[in-house]
């Protein structure tokens, strides 16, 4: 039982000698091809654990090349006798061509990706992004010394508009909760600083 008798009529659908049928078949065949190429890229990204944009770009290239290899293998597989018998000559050829087309289509952008324009959220799965964000949140080493500093951790907790809530107001440094209600007020109203001024004045006189 071959699928040829269903697929061949589709492929031969050429109204006005325009190959709509073959176009449709190839388009459908592109779907699994793109799926496997994307899947390879995602798998490499997840298992490669990118923690920097540079590494993510590198993993993207590896994923692209692997995708080409896997799709080529599948294309070869789809042209084997047993598969041809199963889906028919037209179907197997369309699938093989779709695989190769998808691999080539995906290869160029993955090979030319650079660290500068790597969007980590796109290159890795959401789970990996979550882990990466958690690592940054803990102040761990994530490639850039600044990322480990408390300031950046604080910034990550909010958008620029909300940073006023992430950072304490200036007057709260060692502030009112430390028992001196006048801290943050003009210097003359700080009784301890006032005392320092008086004692300094007496020492200098």
């Amino acid at each position, binding site marked *: 039982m071959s699928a040829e008798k269903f697929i061949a009529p589709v492929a031969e659908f050429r109204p006005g000698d325009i190959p709509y049928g073959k176009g449709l078949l190839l388009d459908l065949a592109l779907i699994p091809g793109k799926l496997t190429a994307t899947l390879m890229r995602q798998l490499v990204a997840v298992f490669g654990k990118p923690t920097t944009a540079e590494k993510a770009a590198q993993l993207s290239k590896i994923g692209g090349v692997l995708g080409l290899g896997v799709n080529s293998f599948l294309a070869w597989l789809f042209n084997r006798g047993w598969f041809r018998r199963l889906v028919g000559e037209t179907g197997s050829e369309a699938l093989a061509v779709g695989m190769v087309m998808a691999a080539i289509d995906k290869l160029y952008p993955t090979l030319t990706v650079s660290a500068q324009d790597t969007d980590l959220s796109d290159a890795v799965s959401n789970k990996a992004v979550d882990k990466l964000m958690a690592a940054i949140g803990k102040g761990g080493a994530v490639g850039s010394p600044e990322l480990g*500093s408390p300031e950046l951790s604080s910034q990550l907790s909010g958008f620029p508009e909300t940073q006023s809530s992430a950072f304490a107001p200036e007057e709260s*440094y*060692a502030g009112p909760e*430390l028992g*001196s209600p006048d801290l943050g007020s003009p210097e003359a109203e700080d009784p*301890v600083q006032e005392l*320092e001024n008086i*004692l300094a004045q007496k*020492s*200098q006189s």
Partner: protein
Amino acid sequence: MLPRVTPIVETADWAASKTKSINVRLTGYVTQIDVAVDLSVTAATSTATTTTDDPYKAMSALKFTASNAHDWISFTDGRQAYWLSYIKSQGNATVGSLPSAGSSGTVTLQFSVHPGNYFGKTDDLTRVIPLAGKTNVQFQVTWGAASAIGTGYTITDASLSIVVHRMILKEGESEADAFAPAKYMLVPRYIPVTYSIDGTYSNYTFIKNIPTGAYIRDVFLMVVDSSDVRSNSDVTKIQVSDNKGNTPVKWDSWTKLVNFIRSRFYLPSAPAGIGLLQFRDIEGKDYGLDMTAASEGDWKLEMSTGASGGKIYCIYEGADMVNINPTVVG
């Protein structure tokens, strides 16, 4: 008020690994103590390589205190006293040379302890130690072992003497008059703390709380490696942070801090391992940080370390605000 410079006749003489005291039976308000030490040292034919401050290892602790009082002055290593005085006196603390191998000699050490804000002024009232009503006022020294200076050097004798600089009330003058219009005085309290470096920490993760309960003006730091030699590489970075993650004082290089201290205090050299963080840099207050009602961890020292096994000897220069007693009259 009138200034007085009073040498104390009593001396604290050598007794290996023992604490000896000089009784200070004086009145007034102590502003500075000059300390002089004569060490008799014998050097064997083979001696260890020494650094400038090694003779100060003869003193393992120094303290100025009284019954029922905080330690006004306190050091847990003689070298702290030398280097703190070195910083404040623009490098003019004294340390004699050790005798050469196979000979004996006297090594003279001399430094000043001045808790006030103006080191050059002995009538500096910004930090004073009131002696009225205090009992057992003593300057104490804990001598180290006879071999404390280093291999091949033996301390055979030593003597420590002090000169007390103070302000006294004129006849009939009350404490309230003398300090008017101030209603309080600031009494120094040195808080010595030693942190053992137990590993290599990056990104300022070696974290220590700044002590609470006083106004903390600054912290003096002496970093030594696992061989007890001052080092610039055992602490590599340091910052002061509050409990909200703000870091108003940050040094991304310990060496930069050491060199900065040299320029800020006009020092002739930048001694390795010696640092000073002035908390005036945080809020612009002369008294530094108000930690009187703070909780542990409100302010922290956060450091990166480059090696394990060393120590950080800290002296937090704090002060307590004490009521003026109008009944004290000269």
